[in-house]
């Protein structure tokens, strides 16, 4: 008997009493979603900023390796998306468009179509996500309602920069992935 059959038959032989799958009620948490989203992102050690504040930061820093998949900021790109993700090793900035954000925790949903390469938001040194301020959801429940049955090979709720507190619980931003997250609300 294969391990598959062994495991499945071991489970079935128990004849466990069926238990019904609970419905998830509608949890609502209305209010000023933009304000809450901004607070959540800043709690996750990212930053929400306006288009002009973003441009000010961007031009002052003088980056030379930039990939932009955002139509809003396509002119900022200095590189096009490579075929091999290994070429992202020294990338300074990636600018992506998020599908929607969740106010309760700052999570932003991205799929293959926004990412280009799945490694992009992780491998880049700085990550910028452009988000429509009218596309904010209250909680994760509304978030999953919004995704519903949409089909993507990869999807990601991204809520902040790479961070760790593994050394004596001291929070350090920029563990292995992106060292910063900036969300530009438009």
């Amino acid at each position, binding site marked *: 008997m294969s391990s598959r059959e062994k495991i499945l038959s071991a489970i079935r032989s128990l004849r466990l009493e069926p238990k019904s799958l609970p419905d998830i009620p509608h949890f609502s948490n209305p209010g000023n979603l933009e304000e809450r989203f901004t607070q959540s992102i800043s709690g996750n050690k990212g930053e929400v900023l306006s288009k002009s504040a973003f441009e000010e930061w961007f031009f002052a820093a003088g980056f030379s390796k930039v990939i932009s998949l955002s139509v809003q900021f396509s002119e900022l790109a200095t590189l096009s998306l490579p075929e091999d993700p290994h070429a992202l090793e020294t990338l300074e900035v990636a600018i992506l468009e998020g599908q929607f954000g969740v106010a309760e925790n700052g999570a932003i949903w991205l799929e293959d179509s926004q990412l280009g390469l799945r490694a992009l938001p*992780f491998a880049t040194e700085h990550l910028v996500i452009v988000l429509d301020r009218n596309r904010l959801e209250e909680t994760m429940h509304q978030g999953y309602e919004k995704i519903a049955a949409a089909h993507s090979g990869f999807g990601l709720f991204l809520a902040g920069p790479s961070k760790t507190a593994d050394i004596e619980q001291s929070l350090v931003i920029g563990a292995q992935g992106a060292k910063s997250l900036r969300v530009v609300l438009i």
Partner: protein
Amino acid sequence: MTHPENAAEFLKDSQKAKWHDETLWFVRDKRDKVSKGIPEWEQLRELASGIKDNVLANLADYLEEFERNATKNGIIVHWAADSEEHNRLVLEILQQQNCTAVVKSKSILTEECHLNPYLEKHGVEVVDTDLGERIVQFLNQPPSHIVLPAIHLKKGEISELFHEKLHTEKGNEDPAYLTQAARVHLREKFFAAKVAITGVNFGIAETGEFVVCTNEGNADMGVHLAQVHIACMGIEKILPRRKDLGVFLRLLARSATGQPITNYNSHFRSPSSGKEIHLILVDNGRTAQLAREKFRNSLKCIRCGACMNTCPIYRRSGGFSYNSTVPGPIGSILSPGLDLKKHSSLPFASTLCGSCTDVCPVKINIHEQLYEWRQEVTKTQGEFAKGLSMKLANGIFKSPLAYKISGSLMRNALKSLPNSLIYHPLNIWGKNRNLPDAPKESFQQWYRKNRS
């Protein structure tokens, strides 16, 4: 070594033990604060528990549905009855790829299966990429906590270790500096690895996708750069519907570290074109635990670690004292199911205060199961020394004269017993505890004097 013996070892460094206790309590406190911000928190716990009840009652059907959908999506699904088979499957995939160096993100399951030593024995270099896990790997230690793997170490120790392994400046203990050094080291490994191994937080039957949560982004750094992704998943990690993730992702990080969500929550459904995803479904004692009615609920665990952070014993004895892959209260009800003899002291590593049960996001009755395991241990191991003293007490309480005499003897004994007898190594409870002052007279004597 039993839990009390290991705990005594941990407590020798009293300053560090105090820091450990306070730091974990701080994490517990953060969990309290963030959970209070969710008015429906208790309802979410109830829902999560109910969803898991349904999963465990229909596990075989869900596993088949999950396998069917994952396969349709292009994921290659494997089944492993035990840790040996799991490890063999991983090695076979690595050999097919001619891969001798692999990056791995946090996976309690691969710790449970002792995958690292197995792969190393077969000539594969394994690099744990979670910072805390890399630290303990450098020290040849297992993680001491499932969410905070290096919580038993102080930054001075890590600084010394990194000086030796990563050539950081001697004496530089700045966590930001040390993390940056690890970043450079680990990114080099990510960009060189052909295969990446991850654990799985949730597998969704309805879609065949699986979800991996990290804060460091290390799981994603590994898998999106590698050619092949191997995901190792315990069979109990199934959720029926995609929308169930709404409930579980709201609970997981809040319970674990007091954050509203982990920064990266990746949903893997199909491999990128030209790449491979292998998913290994592992039993390794889970069906046996499912068969134990009293302990079945322990399979609801989502590995948040909240029960560890709150446990007065865990905080004051350290993760290593449990000598079990999953330490703390939840480990003490999971591990006896795997090896009752080895882990027989764990169900006693608890005050049964119930705090673990109160914080558990999926409402596992942890302290009740600890109590139940004590009965099992006692049954299998026969007469304990404790059993003998109970018999003695039984004799004393049966005879009024014996009771009177023994009472007066005890009152005198409490005063005059030498400490060496009370704080005897066999009397574990004597450690760090003082005997109360004995009253001069018994209640009967007092009553006669004052009320008659």
